[in-house]
């Protein structure tokens, strides 16, 4: 187990700042997720921590020891790569034994631990085969095994599920949580998939262009995104974001939206300000079946339905603006394209961001 602190870490590729003041702390034994779209700096962050990238600035401290300039070898951490990076010319047994061999652990102990790990990850039947003959899921489990066999203090995971099919991905998410519980190792998990981050991470760092935008628990990220970027990133289907403008109305401030207005009093926003109103698809309900909580009731036309099995995502046309909502399958099944509906936008569920900076107002 280990703590980790990154302070203003910089990594530049020519004019591109891949890491631009990346800072965060990871607690001992934490499952910490890094969430961001591709080329936002997730992989570079992990590689920097592993010592595989030459930094232009900043400090990396692990367990109170500055490891910024320490060699890759002997950092007492392991990484699971996106491509798994198994040694293709070695058997699975040799792959699993490799970190132990390099650490100078004896033959008997190595055999015992490799056997244990193979048992734990259910790859015993593959031990004498070579990596290219294994299925994706088996390769993945071997990659995990090779990373944890040495019992590193810190485990770095770089989009380990990206190369797997959907079903396997679901199983592996549970597997990673189980491993984390059993090993107690501090884990850093990079992913572009908000679902993975929310389901697995104890805390999630949302990053953009090589810097942290928000670090919070999954619940807090979902409930109070710090800015428009996080709001769009977390939650599926993504939050509805609608451009609007503030206006004084008597002693109140309101936001004018294409299909109505919402109250923005007491938030300290001046009139005449461009803002973005956000509402999650789950917070839009059918007016007929939900109590009036002071929200906005609107007429909408069903534009498109996407059945997902248990729920259906519905694209609504509200006076030229597209809003998404989510309905249970049996309710949605009765809807026809082009049908008129009465929907309600929950009064307490709206989010408000500055248009220019994206920063959260409320």
């Amino acid at each position, binding site marked *: 187990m280990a703590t980790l602190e990154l302070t203003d870490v910089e990594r530049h590729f020519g004019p591109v700042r891949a890491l631009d003041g990346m800072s965060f702390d990871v607690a001992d034994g934490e499952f910490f997720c890094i969430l961001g779209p591709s080329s936002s700096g997730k992989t570079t962050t992990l590689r920097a921590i592993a010592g595989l990238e030459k930094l232009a600035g900043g400090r990396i401290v692990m367990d109170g020891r500055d490891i910024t300039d320490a060699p890759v070898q002997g950092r007492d951490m392991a990484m699971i790569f996106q491509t798994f990076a198994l040694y293709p010319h070695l058997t699975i047994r040799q792959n699993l034994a490799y970190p132990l061999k390099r650490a100078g652990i004896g033959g008997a102990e190595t055999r015992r631990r490799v056997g244990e790990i193979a048992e734990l990850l259910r790859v015993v039947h593959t031990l004498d085969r070579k990596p290219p003959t294994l299925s994706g899921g088996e390769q993945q489990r071997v990659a995990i095994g090779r990373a944890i066999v040495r019992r590193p203090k810190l485990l770095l995971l770089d989009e380990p599920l990206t*190369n797997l099919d959907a079903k396997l991905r679901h199983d592996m998410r549970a597997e990673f949580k189980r491993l984390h519980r059993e090993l107690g190792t501090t884990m850093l998990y990079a992913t572009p998939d908000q679902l993975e981050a929310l389901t697995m991470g104890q805390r999630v760092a949302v990053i953009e262009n090589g810097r942290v935008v928000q670090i919070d628990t999954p619940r807090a990220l979902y409930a109070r995104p710090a800015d428009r970027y996080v709001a769009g990133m977390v939650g599926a289907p993504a939050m509805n974001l609608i451009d609007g403008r503030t206006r004084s109305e008597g002693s109140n401030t309101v936001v004018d939206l294409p299909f109505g207005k919402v109250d923005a009093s007491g938030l300290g926003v001046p009139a005449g300000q461009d803002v973005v109103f956000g509402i999650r698809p789950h917070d839009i309900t059918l007016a007929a079946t939900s109590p009036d909580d002071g929200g906005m009731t609107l007429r909408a036309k069903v534009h498109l339905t996407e059945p997902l099995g248990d729920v259906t995502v519905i694209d609504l046309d509200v006076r030229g603006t597209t809003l998404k909502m989510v309905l249970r399958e049996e309710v949605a099944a009765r809807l026809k394209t082009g049908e008129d509906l009465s929907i309600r936008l929950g009064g307490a569920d709206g989010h408000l961001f500055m248009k220019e900076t994206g920063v959260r107002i409320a």
Partner: protein
Amino acid sequence: MTAVKLPRRRREIGKGGWRHTAGAAVVALIYFFPVLWIILTAFKTRTDALAIPPKLFFSPTLENFKSVFFRQSITAGSSQETEFLLYFFNSIFIAGTSVLAALIVGTLAAYAFSRHPLKGNDTYLFIILTTRMMPPIVVIIPIFLMFRITGLAGSYWGIILLYTAFNIPFSVWLVKSFFDELNPEIEDAARMDGATERRVFFGMCLPQIYAGLAATFVFGLILTWNEFLFALLLTGVDTRTVPVAMARTMGGEVGVDYGLLAAIVTLFLIPIFFVTFLLQNQLLRGVTFGTVKR
């Protein structure tokens, strides 16, 4: 995005059907015909070899092979041992040593070019290749003079040095392409597992490109094995290679002895045949390396 699993297509012999198989056989025979003709000629008597129309059926003789090593000289009258055993040794020793040396130097250079690129990496690679852009005969005079002055002319080390130098560009380029194809995350994984840079190179990178190294070795060997011009000018009496010695059997008192020439060529083919066959599987993988996208 790189997929993890290589789709493996199994080749099934005979699946092409007899029509395609026959077609392939005909084409193969056309390619192989000159070689076949040489081998046949090696077993013919002088009269059979020169017969018009050419004879396809004849009573074979080993006389030509015998006279490669023991030859009747008209002036001496008695059968005399030739130096061909030495020449064969020379060819094998010189080609083998220089191609191996070029492969070792080339592999080290290729790894450096691939993994630790310099500023202007491509320029250096280009410059390395320029030495192969002109016909060798262009540089023969300066090289000949240099060899004369330094005393390298006629020595083993002289010709080995030259062949090594000529093979290095080719080795660097080819082997670099194999290194470029490797997944660098594998090397990073090894480093994180505690492997030193030396181990990463010898334990991770090299084993993954054995096939490519084999292919590079064979190509270089074939080029060097058949080289004539430099060998003619820069080898001495004791370091003469087979192609040069072969040329010297032509002419003289008795004109061209085709049977003898064919016998030498046939023997000359054997080592290359042997090496190529030995590395056949590696070779196939080597030349198709990187054509399949991971």
